[in-house]
């Protein structure tokens, strides 16, 4: 099975790469420096334990980031014709239950609905994809919610 693609905005990919480089440098500085010694007793030096734990956290995060960067797919602004439809990266103005809301459709890694970033893999994200201004998108969980699409815009890259 092909590895899962991670859809990232340009900023998201840059942020991921920066975090990776920063952590790589941090790991280097930790392992090049003085490693706390194990005490010559039955107990382990707490400093040594702390050092090892830190390294484990670092390594696991570095592995995650490496995997993401390797399988990243950049979200690009579509051509003018395609910009009429909702694709990944679109910021959409919708009317829901009489109230206006604004979402940007992103990949799961950057999703944070509290900040208006909706995952393309969430039920609402999935339903919105491909629609255009004037469409009514019905999301049916046990309740029926209608998203009326009022505006679609893309960031110019």
């Amino acid at each position, binding site marked *: 099975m092909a590895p899962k693609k991670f859809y990232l905005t340009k900023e998201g990919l840059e942020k991921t790469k920066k975090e990776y480089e920063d952590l790589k440098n941090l790991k280097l500085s930790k392992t090049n420096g003085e490693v706390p010694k194990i005490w010559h007793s039955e107990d382990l030096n707490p400093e040594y334990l702390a050092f090892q734990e830190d390294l484990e956290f670092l390594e696991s995060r570095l592995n995650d980031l490496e995997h993401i960067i390797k399988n990243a797919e950049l979200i690009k602004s579509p051509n003018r014709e395609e910009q009429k439809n909702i694709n990944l990266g679109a910021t959409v103005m919708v009317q829901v239950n009489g109230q206006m809301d604004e979402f940007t459709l992103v990949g799961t890694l950057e999703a944070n609905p509290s900040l208006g970033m909706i995952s393309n893999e*969430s039920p609402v994200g999935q339903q919105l994809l491909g629609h255009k201004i004037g469409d009514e998108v019905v999301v049916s969980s046990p309740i029926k919610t209608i998203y009326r699409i009022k505006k679609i815009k893309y960031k110019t890259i």
Partner: protein
Amino acid sequence: MENVLDFLIEIGKLKKMLRQGWVLRGIKNPECIASHTFRMAVMAWLLGEERKLNICKIIKMSLIHDICEVYAGDATPYHPFLLNNKKLPKGLTETWPRFSKKEKEKIFYEKHKKEDKALRAIILKLPPLLRNEIVSLWDDYEKGLTPEGRFVRQLDRVENLLQALEYRQEGKNFSMNPWWIQIEELVDDPVLIDFIKVLERKFNKKCLNH
């Protein structure tokens, strides 16, 4: 050891702090924050196994995700409406509150800043290793930095959905709309989406919508 005891006494306050979402809706004898944390940690373990996540990490993350609320309080999504009013506008809790993107960012970062400060205060006297671990776990949960962080952030809402359905089944009267709307916009984890479908089958129609 005394510092650890002091910390435990502080977080023990979560056993008496009522979840504000229920208080706002006038639910009698609602659950406390510690009750929500307990079941969330168990759910993290059981559902996380299926998802092949780092179980130790997600259980720890669930256990600490709300400890900042001892000092920061439990702010619901309706909290911004309470800043200038003592009471919520009528009917507001029957729907999911909507804000502009700018407002969302402002609300999120202000809440994050307040909770981050509260978290650092409550863990201040713990040994540095534990302090670092708790801050890393909480940051991961808040920002969804890793698969575990994203899973626990969504799980938090799913546990809350389960509690809402249980209260509805007990005959408590409130609208389920905000839960379903939030869930459909937030949850994208396949295991949690499947679990929500199980919830939909388990609870009768009367509980599910209103």
